[in-house]
């Protein structure tokens, strides 16, 4: 844009800059505050850098670490399962030109469309008689159902972008359908699937409302643990430190995706954040 002379232009330019700065501060404040508080080990955040220490991090009790690793375990297994289930399904739907394909993919999208709070309540009613509430399997199942929709959406898009000719070439040279899928299709979409897995993993890691009702003392994801502690006991410094660790995880995730794909990819990405 060409700079235009005149008071009005200068004024609007300043206003715009101011607006961007204010928005930036507004967007950044939770991260900054949580990190500052976690390093100051107290709840009254001030902006002096003198009293920084690691006390709060050292004070994180084992139960928190347990919850953290529990969540990581559940998220990793759910992601792996979801990919293993979603990729063949997407392949069959795209290549097989199955009748009722739209219905099929819409059914799988249900856990994503229904609000997570309601899904959680519905799961609770079914899981209690099945003894699936308050254990790892229940959490895992809930996460897999949630991940499937993302996984299917990703892999359908990937497969639709992949020309069918590669597979047909393999077929015409005598490979079986399965062989051509494993040797031709999978390697071609593997990078995209890896990115999808990363997104699904992150989504699983931060899911809260879906898991809140089916979680219990024997199966506590970290978000539920942080939540119930703040409700029962208020803000505790070591809980803030754990929140800080989650911020680091998010930063690591962003860096990973930005380095591999370039930051442009994140704008309007498929990951719709809910709950």
């Amino acid at each position, binding site marked *: 844009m060409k700079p235009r002379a005149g008071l009005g232009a200068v004024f609007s330019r300043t206003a715009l800059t101011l607006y961007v700065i204010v928005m930036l501060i507004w*967007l950044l404040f939770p991260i900054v505050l949580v990190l500052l508080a976690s390093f100051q080990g107290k709840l009254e955040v001030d902006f002096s850098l003198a009293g920084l220490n690691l006390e709060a991090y050292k004070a994180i009790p084992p139960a928190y670490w347990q919850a953290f690793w529990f969540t990581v375990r559940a998220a990793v297994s759910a992601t792996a399962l979801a990919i293993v289930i979603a990729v063949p399904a997407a392949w069959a739907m795209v290549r*097989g030109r199955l009748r009722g394909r739209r219905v099929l993919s819409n059914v799988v999208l249900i856990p994503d469309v229904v609000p997570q709070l309601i899904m959680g309540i519905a799961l609770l009613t079914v899981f209690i008689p099945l003894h699936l509430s308050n254990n790892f399997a229940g959490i895992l199942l809930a996460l897999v159902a949630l991940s499937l929709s993302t996984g299917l959406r990703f892999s359908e898009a990937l497969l639709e972008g992949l020309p069918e000719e590669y597979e047909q070439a393999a077929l015409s040279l005598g490979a079986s359908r399965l062989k051509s899928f494993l040797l031709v299709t999978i390697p071609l979409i593997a990078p995209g699937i890896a990115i999808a897995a990363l997104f699904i993993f992150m989504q699983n890691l931060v899911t809260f409302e879906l898991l809140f009702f089916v979680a219990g003392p024997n199966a506590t994801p970290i978000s539920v643990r942080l939540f119930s502690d703040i409700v029962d006991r208020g803000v505790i410094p070591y809980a803030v430190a754990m929140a800080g660790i989650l911020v680091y995880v998010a930063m690591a995730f962003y860096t990973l995706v930005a380095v591999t794909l370039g930051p442009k990819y994140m704008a309007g990405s*498929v990951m719709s954040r809910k709950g």
Partner: protein
Amino acid sequence: MAPARERPAPIVDPAPKGRGRALSDDTSILKRRLLRERLFYRLCTVPALLVTGLVAVVPLLLLVFNSFRNQASGAFSLEYYGASLGNAFFLRTLATTIGIALGVTVICIILALPLAYLLARRTLLRNVIMPVITIPRMLPFVVIGYAMILLLAPTTGVVNKVLLGLGILQQPAFILFDWPGQAIAFCYTGIVVATAVLTGVMMSVDPQLEDAAVSMGATRLRAFFVITLPLAIPGIVAATALIFTSIVTAYAIPVMLNGRVPYMISLLISANLLTLQQPHLAYAQAVIVSCLAIGVTAFAQWFLLRYGQRGGAR
């Protein structure tokens, strides 16, 4: 897996001419092979359907089914819907929830639109700000709640301390554990989502269209309102639906920043379910709320289909 090992059915010329005798044989083999192939494809989708069916469809159907049954006798009844929709407290809470959600959504969209526009047009700015709007999306809402408390808590919060220190406030403001605190928290998450979605939409609007308008004598501002904004409307609708539904059914923030009166409908539902031991009433209310949320999403989808998907729905 048997059909997989089979040679694939080539894209076929079904009846090779001049082999009259084998013709019917050939087509039947071909038909069987095609059938088996289709079966194999169907088998591939079974696990996905099974998991979704067991973990989503059945529980949801049960939820709806139970909401129509009396809790004690199991007889069919509409009493829970009547009790919800005839209850002034429920309706008031629902109205408050919708009001907060609507207000916050509108504010978020308006605040995020210019930022999204700038981000879409300035690559440098976008590369700098992208992490700032992406990282919060990778955080559990609980963490946002912690940050809100650190920011706004009555005596220890940063804002109160600064304002007291400057002498603007005489006594600490108690906005956190009341509806304004919740609205502010929702504003935060809403702006993050809106900026991310709208940036993607704005990037898909061709800047040359605007340049054309400017070259014909429009000011930049006018070009934005007349050209860019209308083209971005599908994205705005999508973002609105997303933010609105996520606020209506939010649970973490309303509980963490709750006052004594439940303002948000999700609190009422979970209280009925967990503390008051009226699960069927809670189911009925959950059905009402999900109808609202899904209705809004469906309307947005319909709108996008009807008026083109230029902006990109996601």
